[in-house]
């Protein structure tokens, strides 16, 4: 008797639970019944921030769902695995477009649907790396250098790369530890194309980096980490990001940033349309919105990256204008003479090994 009661009780609970599930399902589904376009995008963090996807949704009625990648590797792997059934759009850095185009994973955009393209700095429109056969595949969105941030109470002016060998700064400098920026920098200083070094050149780069090793107080991995290192005077100069300099200045730490001769590495990001998407029109509307003055200011406020559309200046605060150099079309031209933009690296595993050897050298 008792047993029966118990199994009845279980049956009751199961029925209740399924009813509850059905209810939740109904509630969840009902508001989005209207045939609405949803754009899926695979992007760097911040590129589909709610603060501006909301604005786009109000204007065009399409929701933009962004998946943030944890690292560079995910773009190629995920688009290749999922294709247009998984993503309509990608926003990635200058080392990947060529590979995406060659692998036939993206399709050219129709510039007629992206009128704002004509407003972006001429410099970007003239770049070749995201075009093929006269077609534009990538629409530039943001950019930034990997500059040197230094304490102005230690250095009077932009330090030279020699500080990485000067015993005076032993244990007082830093470089990023989780990407290959330091290896690229070594390549630049050796006079090579930093993105196409073969084994022999990489060996030279490794030698140079091992000489740098005593200078390194700590390798940094997040912007917050380096900000703390410099603010606490553990580190007096480091290969860095503009965001870090800006954060330190806000904290009142005496710092400045520069690109020491001859050059540093840097990146340009772009939007691309995944091949075969059913929402191409809407995807192009999104790209047009992303490079509109409104979209550009919004992404700058989320990420602090430099942007490509000078018309965004009208919507910026004076501080933002100074920080992004948006008023000066020549700035990007001059800066790019001292920036080696990220390019695809074929033998990335060998680069990684050089970085790890540098990190673990005694």
């Amino acid at each position, binding site marked *: 008797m008792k047993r029966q009661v118990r*199994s009845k009780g279980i049956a009751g609970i199961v029925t209740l639970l399924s009813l509850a599930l059905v209810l939740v399902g109904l509630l969840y589904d009902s508001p989005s019944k209207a045939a609405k376009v949803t754009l899926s995008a695979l992007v760097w963090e911040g590129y589909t921030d709610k603060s501006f996807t909301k604005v786009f949704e109000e204007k065009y009625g399409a929701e933009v769902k962004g998946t943030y990648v944890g690292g560079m590797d995910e773009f190629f*792997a995920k688009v290749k695995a999922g294709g247009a059934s998984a993503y309509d759009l990608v926003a990635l850095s200058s080392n990947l477009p060529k590979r995406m185009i060659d692998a036939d994973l993206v399709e050219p955009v129709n510039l007629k649907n992206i009128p704002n393209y004509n407003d972006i700095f001429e410099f970007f429109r003239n770049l070749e790396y995201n075009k093929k056969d006269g077609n534009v595949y990538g629409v530039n969105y943001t950019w930034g250098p990997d500059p040197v941030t230094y304490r102005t109470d230690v250095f009077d002016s932009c330090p030279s790369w020699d500080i990485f060998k000067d015993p005076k700064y032993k*244990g007082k400098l830093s470089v990023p530890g989780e990407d290959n920026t330091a290896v690229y920098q070594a390549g630049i200083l050796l006079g090579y194309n930093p993105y196409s070094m073969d084994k022999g050149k990489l060996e030279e780069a490794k030698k140079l980096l091992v000489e740098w090793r005593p200078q390194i*107080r*700590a390798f940094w991995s997040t912007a917050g980490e380096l900000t703390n290192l410099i603010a*606490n005077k553990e580190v007096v100069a480091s290969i860095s990001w503009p965001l870090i300099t800006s954060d330190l200045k806000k904290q009142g730490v005496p710092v400045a940033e520069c690109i020491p001769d001859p050059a540093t590495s840097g990146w340009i990001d772009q939007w691309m349309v995944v091949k075969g998407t059913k929402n191409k029109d809407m995807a192009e509307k999104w790209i047009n919105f992303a490079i509109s003055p409104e979209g550009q200011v919004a992404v700058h406020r989320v990420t602090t990256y430099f942007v490509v559309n000078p018309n965004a200046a009208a919507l910026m605060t004076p501080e933002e204008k100074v920080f992004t150099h948006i008023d000066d079309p020549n700035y990007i031209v001059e800066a790019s003479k001292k920036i080696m933009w990220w390019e695809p690296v074929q033998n*990335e595993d060998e680069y990684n090994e050089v970085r790890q*050897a540098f990190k*673990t050298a*005694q």
Partner: protein
Amino acid sequence: MKGRRLEFFILIAIPILWITVLEIFAYSVLLIHSFWDTQYLTVIKEFTLKNFVKIFTTPLYYKTIFKTIGIGITVSIFALLLGYPVAFFIAYRMKRYKNLLLLFVVMQLWISYLVRAYAWKIVLGTNGVINQFLLFIGVIDEPLSILLYSQFALILVLTMAFIAFLIIPVYAMLEKIPQEFLQASYDLGAGRFTTFWRVIFPLTLPGVIAGITSVFALSVGDFVAALLVGGPEGIMIGNIVWSLFGSAFQWTLGAANGLVLIILVAFILYVSEKIAARYSGMEI
């Protein structure tokens, strides 16, 4: 009977699902990947021993793995040397505040390990508490840089992070020892030291082993402390695996490194348990 059977299945379904998905499935994926290869951004799904050859011929990998195990052993020894006396003190020398002290030991686990590691940065930093104090009393003229971003800092932080995992099981074993045993030992003419070494310590050995196992396994697999306070000297294999899986997109090599570490750690734990079992005369 039917009802009970249903209950039983529901009950065991959860742990079985848990074990299959999170343990067996995850480890199988790791195992398979370690025998595959990566070229540029694609995983080549063909059997190869390339990753293992690379690990055992590249000093970067095998040296870091051995260094990591060395750090794990050092941390375990320090945790034992510092933690055992604490457990002993709480168990035998405390009467009124026993529970309060135990609470203090457990309480540090309530605070995220990340926060505790950051707290150590404030204590050990160039402008940190210790350096400021030493400068103030005039022992040093310049801040000591060895305190932070060094192997010293790494071992200190790992020891303090995981020491509670040793104190608690050792304390539990100490509590269980009947007073009569100690009385008998003294009656038979043993001094304090002999009583400790011949009676108390062997009886707490299962707790010691459990504690050391936890501390060792936790610290060998750690990469956060290395990242935060280890500096250039303190890079562990966990950091390398992390970056192989991250920006480097070298999942297969990362998986192989992980597998080698898992096998080595399992082997060390197996041997240490066997030795301990023989020494204490009981099977654990």
